[in-house]
């Protein structure tokens, strides 16, 4: 299921499932590589229709850490190299939370290769008066092991069963603690300053991506205010906004079927568009 690719002399773990057109999936916190070593129901739903290619960010999962990564630009360049190593020409792109940010940054740089873009609870934008929450402070347990604030940041509610299963109170087995630690090392490298998890210039660059886009967010997102989803939908030329009820930032974990359907609909829009333009084969 997972293989290691060499990117600039460092091993990058890439998980794959399903068959069909490739969809590169960039993970977030409550996600494969971020907190789980396995696929989640959401990914399996996508894999019924497309080939899901999910690399672990540098330093996350079993990808080697890259001490040279300081900014989002460094991560984007890492992915440009990884995409070359993957040897896929055109591809669909989706990302969740911090992975959504990276996906958006990639799409504006590679508009000709990204066939469709799905942003799920994406961080990445600076929206005045609507700051992204301080997930770094919230992941510091209260009273020695209470992670309810962290769960509340990432899910519709601290007591949501999916949240409790993924991030229970107290200490988890070392393997899972380390998975989360690695995820926060990466997030901290690129998203601790400016606070938090955004790139101020991204918003004005979104217009460069003209392909079909889906902007998906949980209505009860406590990490990324809904204003960000609206800003993404406005900035991307050809975006559809989908707000999902009873879900938070980890909307793909909370409502896997609904979110997978929205992503696949966006993939379908790209198919229809390229059929019209007659460039489908050229880009495969």
């Amino acid at each position, binding site marked *: 299921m997972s293989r290691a690719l060499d990117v600039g002399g460092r091993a990058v773990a890439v998980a794959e499932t399903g068959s069909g057109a490739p969809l590169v999936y960039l993970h977030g916190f409550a996600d494969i590589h971020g907190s789980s070593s396995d696929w989640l129901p959401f990914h399996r739903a996508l894999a019924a229709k497309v080939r899901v290619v999910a690399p672990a960010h540098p330093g996350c999962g079993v990808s080697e850490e890259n001490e040279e990564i300081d900014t989002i630009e460094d991560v984007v360049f890492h992915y440009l190299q990884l995409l070359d190593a993957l040897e896929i020409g055109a591809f669909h792109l989706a990302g969740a939370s911090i992975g959504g940010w990276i996906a958006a940054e990639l799409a504006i740089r590679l508009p000709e290769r990204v066939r469709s873009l799905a942003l799920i609870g994406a961080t990445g934008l600076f929206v005045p008066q609507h700051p992204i929450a301080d997930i770094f*402070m919230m992941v*510091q*347990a*209260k*009273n*020695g092991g209470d992670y309810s604030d962290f769960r509340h940041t990432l899910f519709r509610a601290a007591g949501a069963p999916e949240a409790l299963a993924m991030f229970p109170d107290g200490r988890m087995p070392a393997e899972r*603690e380390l998975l989360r*630690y690695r995820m*926060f090392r990466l997030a901290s490298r690129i998203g601790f300053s400016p606070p938090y998890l955004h790139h101020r210039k991204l918003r004005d660059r979104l217009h460069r991506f003209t392909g079909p886009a889906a902007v998906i967010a949980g209505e009860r997102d406590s990490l990324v205010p809904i204003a960000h989803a609206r800003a993404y939908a406005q900035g991307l030329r050809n975006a559809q906004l989908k707000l999902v009820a009873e879900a938070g930032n980890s909307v793909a974990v909370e409502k896997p079927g609904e979110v997978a359907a929205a992503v696949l609909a966006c993939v379908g829009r790209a198919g229809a568009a390229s059929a019209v333009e007659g460039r489908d084969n050229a880009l495969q």
Partner: protein
Amino acid sequence: MHPVRLFCWHFMAYPYLPSDFDARYDSGWVTVPNTLWDRERAGDLYQGYIDQLVYADELGFDGMVLNEHHQNIYGLMPSPNIIAAALTQRTKHGKIVVLGNLLPLHRNPLRVAEEYAMIDNMSGGRLIAGLAIGGGPEAFNYNVPQPQARDQFWEAVDLIKRAWTEPGPFEHDGKYYPLRYVNLWPQPRQRPHPPIWIPGALSLETMEETAKRGHDYFLSSRAHGPATQRAAQRFGEIIRRHGGEFHPFRMGLLISVYVSESDEQARAESREGVWYFIKNTLKGHLRNHGRMLTFGIGVPSMTVASYDSFLKNARPENKMLGDCDSWEELDQFGSIIVGSPATVRKRLWELIEQAQIGNFLVQFHFGNMEDRLARKSMRLFATEVAPALRRDSADLFARSFPALGDIAMAGAAQ
């Protein structure tokens, strides 16, 4: 003869919190609302605290210790250099130990090199220059990304030392602080440079990097006892591996003390200040109750390998200093020693004998402790505890480190 050196450390806590602070607030750090600052009463705070440090100098302490913290109630010195400058004018004898300036919080470490050089000149060469990386609260205070902070820190340390020792102007082509002109005016008074102390909390990485450069190590951990001895042994081994010579004055440690006529009286007099210090000022820092910001996933400065071994060694139920709830627990913890001169002498002697560390940085003022009590404790310590410790430690160090008499201690022990 080289007796143990006894310094007086002042944190300069905010002493006017409401009595229900612990019940109402998660943390005394970063998010503690500054509406709790009482302008009227706090106006004289710095003056009073500086006076206490001047008193320490008069009592014959080997030096005064200051450090840098931001946006918190534990220590009100965002710029310890300002207090150090004041001490240059009001003290005559003791070292001025700034432990330290938090380098990753500064946009340009040359500013630190410059201010330290000024303090060294203004004090007649009495500066001990602490260079520190900062912990979790400081990461949040100034939004310093932690995975890169160590790398950034060591570049700054090396740049400061070069600026003090190499003829300028020269170019520094570092990753974090590229500078075309490094040409420090003034140069520090001490040659080759003021002693450099690097604080660390038991991490081998910090000991390694400190030893490699020939700097001295200050153990900032609050876990005393066998851990202190192990740390001294490890640092000694690392120094020798790098071809250096270990002796007690290559290391320092932090300890807190309250001395009064009897054990009972010491507890009675220090009760309010000590527990204010533990329950209020350590909340958010070294206490599990509330939200501890000092280390962890949100401020991931440790490498993955270090975090892995941290998880293996530190049990989640382990208590920190701020989790102590009784005098008995405090006694066991060994970081705050409250008692008669005989008790304090005995406990400190045990530490000196076991760990053979030569620099004891002693906190006397706790939280909201009254001025007269802090002074009383300092006075009793200076007259009834320090002389015996100095005498006995000089003998001990001479026996354990026969070469000590010949070692020039880079200005630090002069």
